[in-house]
């Protein structure tokens, strides 16, 4: 009986170890997914809001227009660099009152094109069909916030 229990105990310890490693790197995994979504390594779906069909995913990659964090600038693009400061600082945006993003507001602007103070963003910014996981991953990648 003891002979049988011992391997089970080791097996449980092994599972616990794997689980702890997974939890410990969970934030990186999420941010890593965000980085891949941002760069287009993983595809996003979306469209120009005046259109009835989705754009090819290569045409609507975030990195086509936006630089992220301290990464390289996008040549000849006027789109803002997306980082923690831009998203989390209180500041006037698009001529509206001061505002900042949280994850929900970030998801809303990506999905519906409406910013934190209800200003509709430019038509050239696609509206994305994002799952909660994708949105969380992009937020984590750009802000470092995995909560």
């Amino acid at each position, binding site marked *: 009986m003891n002979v049988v229990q011992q391997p089970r105990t080791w097996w449980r310890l092994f599972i616990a170890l794997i689980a702890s490693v997974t939890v410990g790197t969970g934030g990186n995994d999420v941010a890593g997914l965000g980085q891949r979504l941002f760069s287009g390594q993983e595809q996003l779906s979306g469209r*120009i809001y*005046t259109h009835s*069909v989705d*754009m*090819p995913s290569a*045409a609507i990659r975030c990195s086509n227009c936006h630089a992220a964090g301290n990464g390289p600038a996008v040549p000849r*693009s006027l789109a803002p660099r997306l980082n923690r400061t831009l998203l989390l600082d209180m500041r006037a945006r698009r001529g509206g009152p001061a505002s900042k993003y949280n994850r929900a507001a970030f998801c809303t602007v990506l999905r519906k094109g409406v910013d934190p103070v209800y200003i509709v963003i430019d038509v*050239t910014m*696609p509206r994305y069909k994002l799952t909660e996981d994708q949105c969380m991953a992009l937020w984590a990648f750009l802000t470092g916030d995995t909560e």
Partner: protein
Amino acid sequence: MIRKNLAPTRRWLLGQAFASLATFSGLSAVGQETSNEDHGGIVTPIDVPAIPLLSTNGSLETLTGMTRGKATAIQLMFAQCTTTCPIQAAIFQQVQKLLPDSARHRVQLLSISIDPENDTLPAIREWLHRFQAGSEWMAAVPRAKDLPSLQSLFGRARTSVESHSTQVHIVNQRSQIVWRSIELPSAESVAAVLSRI
């Protein structure tokens, strides 16, 4: 009693008939539907000037010559543009697919570079190839000194390459601008207007 019931139906039928006539009359109907200062049908068509353009087949032509005889959808772009140009290209790609076979021989798509300094013929050909341009879709490069004229005609007179207009202009067979889209128009709207001219 019966007459009274029939009257609205007759009025409705007449209305539908006039609506159909307006639709088949082509551009004037489009103009009436959407015309305003910024986009829609252009009440007094604008003659395109004979601006010299280097076309992707290597020949020096003029905008007038390139547009004469075919309904032409025109957009501004540059090959190094990663922001709106891939979306503009995707729109033209989709327009190609939407055009009915009956219209293909009388329409064309023209992407005009606003970056003559960098857009060499190989660069512009590669750009067309990258977006699977078919035989109806061509590109052309102007001289730098003609950019202001082109921006004035098709680009809301913007001077910044980075914030160039993404409108599509439709030029008729007589080389006149007759319709102007919203920014990043749907392929359906461009194909519909092109097919009706």
